[in-house]
């Protein structure tokens, strides 16, 4: 989330086309929160529970596969309702693309995007972290559950904590969200989602088979304005499909969250959100610019 980069895109493409994925994403995130909050606050139960396990419209169980995995390694075999819910969620993200969760559903993204926006506004030079480090955190969460026999990650899991903030009025989750905001603001650029969050790393592992991908049908039009790199929360995923003309013009790096911000901010319409295999032009037709 870089407040500066969209100006050029807005001039080139108009407000809607330069912001639409961002706005749709915000709409999706707010809808998720609203569906959890409407029950306790208005008595209209759409989603009951939180993002570790919930019940949609009193019929469809949903549960987070990583949470169930922790429960299993901690020594409990979850009941059928939880397993069915986990299978539904896993199937959806396997089919569509795992890290859609991170950018379209997870409420923590609102906080980390706010930190990112503030960081750009204040022009704070912060180092990017190691994007592979998150897999170690994921392993640590599972080992921790196995070693203690408890879902220790849930002590600090900001995802469920933030749902609790809005459903049950729990205030302690705000500490974790504040900590993440500060961490992302001055210590690491997009540090929480990009280098630490074990839920994000789990969904990145699931992200390999998804149907939706960011495609680059017009990469030869790239004029190196760097807007996509500045806007992308995982900028390391862009370089190869954009610059390596031998590579397929599709972002296949599982760290891509499919947030669509690159599509928005590119004034040259290099990117699009599309299917994994679209009958696209063969590789040879890509022009090599002098």
């Amino acid at each position, binding site marked *: 989330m870089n407040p500066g980069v969209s100006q050029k895109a807005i001039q080139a493409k108009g407000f809607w086309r330069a912001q639409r994925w961002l706005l749709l994403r915000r709409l999706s995130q707010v809808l998720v929160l609203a569906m959890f909050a409407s029950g306790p606050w208005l008595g209209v139960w759409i989603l009951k529970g939180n993002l570790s396990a919930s019940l949609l419209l009193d019929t469809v169980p949903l549960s987070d596969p990583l949470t169930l995995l922790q*429960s299993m390694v*901690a020594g*409990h075999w979850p009941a059928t309702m939880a397993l069915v819910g986990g299978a539904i969620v896993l199937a959806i993200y396997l089919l569509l693309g795992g890290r859609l969760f991170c950018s379209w559903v997870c409420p923590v993204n609102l906080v980390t995007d706010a930190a990112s926006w503030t960081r750009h506004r204040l022009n704070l030079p912060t180092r990017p972290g190691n994007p592979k480090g998150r897999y170690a955190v994921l392993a640590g969460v599972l080992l921790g559950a196995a070693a203690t*026999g408890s879902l220790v990650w849930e002590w600090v899991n900001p995802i469920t904590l933030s749902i609790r903030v809005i459903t049950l009025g729990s205030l302690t989750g705000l500490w974790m969200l504040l900590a993440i905001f*500060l961490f992302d603001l001055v210590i690491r650029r997009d540090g929480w989602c990009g280098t630490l969050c074990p839920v994000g790393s789990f969904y990145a592992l699931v992200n390999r088979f998804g149907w939706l991908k960011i495609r680059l049908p017009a990469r030869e039009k790239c004029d190196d304005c760097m807007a996509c790199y500045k806007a992308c929360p995982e900028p390391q995923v862009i370089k190869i499909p954009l610059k390596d003309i031998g590579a397929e013009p599709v972002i296949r790096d599982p760290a891509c969250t499919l947030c669509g911000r690159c599509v928005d901010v590119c004034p040259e319409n290099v990117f699009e959100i599309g299917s994994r295999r679209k009958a696209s032009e063969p590789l040879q037709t890509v022009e090599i610019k002098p």
Partner: protein
Amino acid sequence: MRTRRDPKPPVNPARRKAIAQGMQYACAAGLTTLFLGLQSQKGKASGGVWLRPPGALEEPDFLAACVRCGRCVEDCPWDTLGLAEFLSPLATGTPVFNARKVPCEMCEDIPCVKACPTGALDPELTDINEARMGVAVLTDRENCLNLLGLRCDVCYRVCPLIDEAITLELHRNVRTGKHAIFEPTVHSDVCTGCGKCEHACVLEEAAIKVLPRKSAQGELGAHYRISWEQEDAS
């Protein structure tokens, strides 16, 4: 190619770097202090005895089974249940209740157990009278009004299993020599630990409290034989 140059005033890179690094160190120190501070606050947390909802598995198993989704909390019609917070003595996000504040109302259909997706609240519990959330203990025999010789009887009257879980045992009042004492007596084989007695106790601080069964009850060594029960069995 980018040709436009940002019309910015000249910056002093060394100064900027020093400020940014200072902020980084300050934030790192702040975050560390925050988490260590939370831990120390946890030590100070009190707030009575925390109980698990009906049907909860034994504590080590419960911590592995409960996914902290809070559906039992949302389905509790009496707002008895809440989720433990950072500073609670029990694991964050797990369901708890404080009987002195809101006791379990012993719903016959047990909606909290039905809501649980993982089996952390055992679905085999179908009769709420079989729940064992804890056991009531007359912890303060010095201030209980009944033991002082009055006829308060409130804990006995509110017990959903009156005359089974709590009975009034008649003793002679040795202080006056001529009055009776009606001692509220809990029977652990029947008490569900719902906490209505603790909630209703008229004292400023309840004299009867529901404690987790592990905390309240002793356990005989396996080598002890109770002769009169042995005879019954044979």
